[in-house]
C-alpha cells in the first residue's frame, strides 16, 4: 500500500472514516464471499442426489435474509453518522481564518494570490505566484477558489482536500497544515488537453521561513 502523509488537521479524520468503512464493508464482503464459496463447495453436484425444493416462505428460512438486512441498515447508520461528521467539519463549517488566499484555475495553470505582509487579501502588497503556493504551518487558511474558463479542481492529496473551481463563482473552503514540507497539487477535473500538466506545488513553511519568503517575494515583485 502507498502510505500517504497526513499533512492537514482533518486528514486523520478522513482517514479514520475510511478505516471505519473498510472494517464494516470488509466484514460484509468477507462474510458474503465466505458463505458464497462455501455454498458452491457444499452443494456441488453429486451423483444420484437431487436438489432440494425450498420455497423460502417460512419465517425461520426468511430470517437468513431479514437479519442481515437489519444489520446492513445498522451499519449504514454508523457510516452515515461518521460521514456527516467529517463532512461537516471539512466542508460545512468554517473556522476563524488566520489568513486568506485566492486560488485561480485556468487552462492550464494555477495562480495563487497570497495576502502579503499586511495579511490582507486584495491589497497592494499581495503576492501572485504561478504553480507554487506558500502557506504557514499550524495556521487556518481560507481559500477563495475561482476559475477563469472551465471547471478545474483544487486537490491536495496530503491534505485529503478537494474542491471544484467553477467559473462565475468564488467558492470558499479552509485548511490547516500540521507539518512542513513540499507536496503536489493536482487538478482533479478534466479541463482540456493540458489537464495532465496542470500541476502545482504547495510549500508548507514554519513561521520564520514563511516570513522570509514573504519579504523576499515582496522585494522581487515591488517596483
Amino acid at each position, binding site marked *: 500500500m502507498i502510505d500517504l502523509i497526513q499533512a492537514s488537521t482533518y486528514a486523520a479524520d478522513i482517514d479514520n472514516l475510511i478505516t471505519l468503512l473498510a472494517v464494516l464493508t470488509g466484514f460484509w464482503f468477507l462474510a458474503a464471499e465466505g458463505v458464497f464459496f462455501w455454498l458452491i463447495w457444499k452443494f456441488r453436484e453429486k451423483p444420484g442426489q437431487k436438489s432440494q425444493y425450498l420455497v423460502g416462505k417460512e419465517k425461520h428460512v426468511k430470517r437468513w435474509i431479514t437479519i442481515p438486512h437489519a444489520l446492513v441498515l445498522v451499519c449504514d447508520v454508523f457510516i452515515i453518522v461518521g460521514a456527516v461528521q467529517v463532512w461537516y467539519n471539512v466542508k460545512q463549517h468554517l473556522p476563524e481564518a488566520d489568513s486568506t488566499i485566492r486560488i485561480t484555475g485556468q*487552462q492550464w495553470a494555477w495562480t495563487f494570490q497570497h495576502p502579503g505582509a499586511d495579511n490582507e487579501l486584495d491589497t497592494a502588497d499581495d503576492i501572485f505566484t504561478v504553480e507554487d503556493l506558500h502557506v504557514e504551518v499550524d495556521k487556518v487558511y481560507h481559500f477563495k477558489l475561482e476559475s477563469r474558463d*472551465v471547471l478545474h479542481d483544487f*486537490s491536495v492529496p496530503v491534505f485529503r482536500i478537494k474542491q471544484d473551481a467553477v467559473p462565475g463563482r468564488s467558492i470558499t473552503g479552509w485548511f490547516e497544515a500540521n507539518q512542513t514540507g513540499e507536496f503536489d497539487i493536482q487538478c482533479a477535473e478534466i479541463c482540456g*488537453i493540458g489537464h495532465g500538466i496542470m500541476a502545482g506545488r504547495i510549500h508548507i513553511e514554519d513561521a520564520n521561513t514563511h516570513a522570509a519568503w514573504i519579504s523576499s517575494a515582496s522585494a522581487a515583485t515591488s517596483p
Partner: protein
Amino acid sequence: MADTVVDVHHDAHAHDDHHHGPSGIIKYLWSTDHKIIAMQYMFTGMAMGILGGYMAYVFRMQLAFPGISVPGFGQVSPGEYNALITNHGSIMIFWLAMPVLIAAFGNYLIPLMIGADDMVFPRINRLSFQIFFISVLVLLASLFVEGGGFGGAWTSYPPLSSEAEFNLTNLGSTLWLTAVALEFVAFLLGGINFITTLMNARAPGMKAYDIPLVCWMIVIASILFMLSVGPLIAGAVMLLFDQTLNTGFYDPARGGDPILWQHLFWFFGHPEVYVVLLPAIGITIEVMATFSRKKIFGYKMVLYTAVATGVLSFFVWAHHQFIAGIDPRMANVFTITTLLISVPIAEMLFVMIATLYGGSIRLTTPMLWALAFMAEFLIGGVTGIFLGASGADIYFHDTYFVLAHFHYTFFPIAIIGTFCGFTYWFPKMFGKMMNETLGKIHFWGTVIPFNFIFIPLFVLGMGGQHRRIYNFQHFPELAGPEMYNLRQTATIALLVMIAFQLVFFTNLIMSLIKGEKAGKNPWKANSLEWTTESPPPHGNWPPDQMPVVYRGPYEFGHPDREEDYWPQDEPA
C-alpha cells in the same frame, strides 16, 4: 417495403411476414423478426466492445509506458488521449452495455420467454435498431473529423464541452453529442416495445409472478431509462445549442450555470447504472437457478428489491457532485439516500447467494460466469460505500479508486453478464453447443487478469492518483517507481485479458461450424424459450402450438417428480 402490404392480413400474429419479402442480405437488414434484431444489436454491440477495448489498450499503454509509440496506434498526444478515454467510456456504456444487455437480450428473450410470436411493435423495433446503427456511424465519424474526437470525458461537463475554444474539438464534440442523442432515441423506441410486449403478449396462463425474472429486470430497466432520460435530453439540447448556436445556458458570464448540466446528467446517469445492472442480474439469476437446479430463494423479494433500487436511484444523483460546488448541506441528504440504496442491493445479492443453498451445482461455463458476476460485483458494491459516504468522498472523488470501483461494477455487468447470457443462450440462438473446454479457458483468462488490472488501480487511487491525467511525470508524488510498477502491472494484465478474448472468438466460430447439435432444451431448464426448436423458427412456435403456461419458471427439484425440472408449459 414489400412486407408492409402483407402485414395487413396477419392481424392474428404480431410479427411481420417475411416469406414473401426480399431475400438474402436485405432480408436480414430489414427484418422485423425480434431474434434477428437481437442478433444485430448483439454483434454491433460486440464490435463496439472490441473498439472500446482497443481504446483502453492504447491509453493504458501510454499510462504505463509514457511517450512510447503504441503498436497499432503510434504515439499518443494529449488530445488523442482525452478522446480515447472519453470514447472508451461512452462506447462501453452506451454502445456495448446498453445494446447487448437491454436491446439484444431483451429482444431475444422477452417474446420467447413469455410465449409470444414477436414483439408487439415489430417495425418500431426495426426502426430502433436502424437509429441505433446510425448513432454508431455518427460516433465513428466523430473520431475522424478535423480536430479529432471529443475529449471532455463521457460526463461531458460544460464549459469544457460547450465551447470549442476550450475543448478544441468543434466538430467532434457536436457529433459525439448527436450520437448519444440518437442512441437515446433508439432505446426509447426499444423500451416502449419491451414494456408493451411484457404487459400484453404473454402466453395464456402466465401471471405476473410466472414471468422469468430476466424479463422483469429488462422491463424495469426500460422504465427507469424512460423516466430518467427526459431531463438529460433537455440538457443535451441546451448543450447542443451552446455548442452550435452560441447560446449561454451553461455560461456563467451570460447568466447560465455549468452545474445545471451536472444535475441533469446525473439525474439520468445514476439510474443508468441500474438500467444496465438489473438486466445483468436478471441473466445471472436465470443461469444460477438452472445450474443449481433450485427455485429462486425469494422471487418476489428480488422483484421488490429491484423496484426499490430503481425508485431510490432517482434520489441519489448528487453523490457524484459532493465536491462540485453544490450547497454543502445537500451532501448530507444525498449521503443518506445513497447509503440506503445498499439495503435493497445487498438483499438482492443475499437472495442470490441463498438460492445456492440445497442446490446441485453444475459448474458449466455459463454458471462460472454467473458466479463470477456475484463474486466480482460484491467488490464493486462495497467499494461504492466509500464513495457514497460524503466525508470519505472528499478524498476519493475523481481518483483511480473511483475508476476501479465502477469498473468492478461495469465489468461484471457489461462483460461478465454478456458472456454469461451469451454462453447460456448460445444453444438456443444457433442450435449448437459451445465448446466447454475453450469456454473455461476463456473464462479464467478473462476473470483472473481482470482483478490484476483493477486492484492495482485501487491502490493507486488511495495513493492520490487522479483520473484522466495523460502523463504523471509532472507530479513528483505520482512519478515514483512503485507507482509505475502498479501501472505496468495493470497494463500487462489488460494485454493478457485481451489475448484471451481470441479464445472466445475461436470458440464462437468453431462452435457455429461444427458444434454439437443442441436440441430443444440442452440445459434442462423450465422457461418457455426451451420448448421450441433451436434456433426458433420465424414466429417462434408453429401457430397452432403456441405455449400455455401452468406454473412459474423456477420449479426445480420438485419432490413430486422424478425429473428435477418442470417446464412451464407442461400440463400438471
